């Protein structure tokens, strides 16, 4: 009887000991007579409560940038403002929180009702978009530290060929769709993970991040704002919003005589020359052609990229920790794993090794990846179709004008316009139509 009891007890003890279960009281804490136990050290964050300050700085920055670009028309004002933003949002706040990353928080918040987007992050997503819908991309001009750091190193802008500019201009949309897919599924915030400048703002970070950031800055000396134009997913959104803006920067304060003095003023390819005016008949014909093209292209492109998006969605599953774990567990079960056990499987074993639970989770995850991928792909297809239609059927333009979506309100072109110089009180002779610049 005692032997059986002893055996049972030993078995119990061994059971407890074999599993390295967390927080087991193997050695009872002593009762000290004279020694009092110290408190566990758990320091709180320094300088908390800056969230409202960030939002205040953001809002006033947006207001100032809009004022400088539209009302005062002052490049100097924009430069000073962007330096201040670079100092505050970049080097002081170390690049976090930022509007570009906030897309992912919003995507996760919409997809996952259990996740609450912090109000400050929500403000960083919303305010620049609202401002862009009314006053254009003032955020890019004077508030975004990423834009500022690229804008300030620009020394010798090279003109990008139009076709290359259009092709590279698709990249932000791909990045946006992929970023939303990974954020909404709760995988990771890829836009933050591969942010090029945050390492520079922090003066620390993974080597690849620092090298990438430095390389992009060198490129930015010759190609104006490469990240903004060819990668930034938030810039893509702001570009669309700016298309419908109530007021946007104009080269001339009042009239354009097509003197061509401003022609090379924009380093970002955001200044459009006048289009040869079409007469009434041509306009109607080209309008019809555009409708026909869109009627064919929109559904086709949406279907094609929707299908592709679903495929890409499923194949991105290993980027989610649960998806990765399921893949590893499966390959272990099939005996395909050799060499040392990955840490994921060590953790899996320690947590109870419930294969079924892992697989069930992966199946649910797969359908989420597929659905999100399909819809995001379809949305990308629509954007691409509209882009193509715009290349073939550009809108009429009578004068030199800033591009609806590309213009980042940097205010560089203003002073090339003789009418702007007149407005500023500089005595210049206003050139006659079409003869300026030789």
């Amino acid at each position, binding site marked *: 009887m005692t032997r059986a009891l002893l055996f049972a007890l030993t078995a119990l003890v061994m059971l407890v000991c074999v599993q390295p279960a*967390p927080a087991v009281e193997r050695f009872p804490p002593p009762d000290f007579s004279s020694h009092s*136990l110290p408190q566990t050290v758990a320091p*709180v964050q320094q300088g908390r409560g800056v969230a409202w300050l960030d939002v205040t700085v953001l809002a006033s920055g947006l207001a100032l940038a809009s004022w400088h670009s539209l009302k005062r028309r002052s490049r100097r004002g924009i430069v000073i403002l962007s330096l201040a933003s670079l100092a505050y949002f970049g080097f002081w706040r170390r690049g*976090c929180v930022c509007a570009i990353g906030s897309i992912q928080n919003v995507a996760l918040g919409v997809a996952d009702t259990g996740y609450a987007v912090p109000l400050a992050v929500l403000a960083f997503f919303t305010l620049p978009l609202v401002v862009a819908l009314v006053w254009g991309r003032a955020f890019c001009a004077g508030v975004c530290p990423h834009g500022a750091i690229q804008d300030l190193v620009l020394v010798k802008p090279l003109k990008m060929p139009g076709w290359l500019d259009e092709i590279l201009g698709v990249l932000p949309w791909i990045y946006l769709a992929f970023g939303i897919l990974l954020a909404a599924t709760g995988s990771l915030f890829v836009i933050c*993970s591969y942010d090029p400048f945050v390492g520079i703002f922090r003066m*620390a970070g993974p080597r690849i991040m620092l090298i990438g950031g430095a390389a992009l800055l060198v490129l930015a000396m010759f190609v104006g704002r490469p990240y903004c134009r060819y990668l930034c997913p938030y810039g893509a959104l702001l570009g669309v919003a700016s298309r419908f803006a109530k007021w946007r920067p104009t080269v001339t304060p009042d009239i354009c005589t097509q003197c061509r003095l401003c022609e090379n003023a924009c380093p970002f390819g955001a200044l459009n020359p006048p289009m040869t005016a079409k007469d009434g008949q041509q306009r109607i014909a080209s309008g019809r052609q555009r409708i026909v093209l869109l009627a064919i292209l929109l559904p086709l492109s949406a279907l094609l990229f929707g299908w592709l998006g679903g495929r890409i969605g499923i194949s991105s599953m290993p980027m989610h920790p649960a998806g990765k774990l399921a893949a590893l567990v499966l390959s272990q079960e099939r005996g395909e794993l050799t060499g040392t056990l990955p*840490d994921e499987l060590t*953790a899996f074993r320690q947590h109870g090794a419930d294969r079924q639970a892992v697989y069930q989770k992966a199946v649910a995850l797969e359908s989420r990846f597929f659905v999100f991928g399909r819809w995001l792909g379809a949305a990308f297809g629509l954007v691409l179709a509209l882009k193509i239609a715009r290349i073939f059927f550009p809108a009429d333009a009578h004068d030199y004008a800033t591009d609806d979506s590309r213009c980042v309100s940097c205010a560089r072109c203003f002073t090339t316009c003789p009418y702007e110089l007149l407005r500023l009180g500089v005595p210049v002779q206003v050139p006659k139509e079409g003869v300026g610049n030789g």
Partner: protein
Amino acid sequence: MADPSSHLSRRDLLRSGLRGAGLLGVGAATGFLSGREAKAETVWQINPDLCIQCGRCATECVLEVSAVKCTHSFGMCGYCKLCTGYFEPEPVNLDEGAENQLCPTGALKREYIEDPYYEYSIIRELCVGCGKCVKGCNMFGNGSLYLQVGHERCLNCNICSISTACPAQAFVRVSADKPYLLRGKGKPGK
């Protein structure tokens, strides 16, 4: 219909319509998202029960020296003379000699209290968050040593760079009002 002015106004109408829709959409999304119950800010923390001490906390943080630090719940500690979190598996002597210590930076301090009890505390400035002591303590001890994100240094990145590398999915967002997941709550010296 071919009159340019009427064409322009139609385009303007479309633009203002889409602008209105955009503003409405952004407003609706903001209202929808800000209506959530838990509006409190979140910070990153490690669930010590999920942590497997793989060592990536020491290498994956965006900071030069990781913000993750070893934390000690004194109320759970056995105050062992032979602490498996402090000593190498086969120590030459049971004393504070560097060759006997598990910690690569000497961040774990050992102090004599009364026979046979020793108190262990963490020098946070030296700790790099490698989790070697945590592993030792969890294997053979009470698990009173565990890793926690130190909020005196954490930048609270939008996505914690360690969390994406963590093989045990041990990183969680916790409310900024209660930024630690401490063990042994409710015991003296928590």
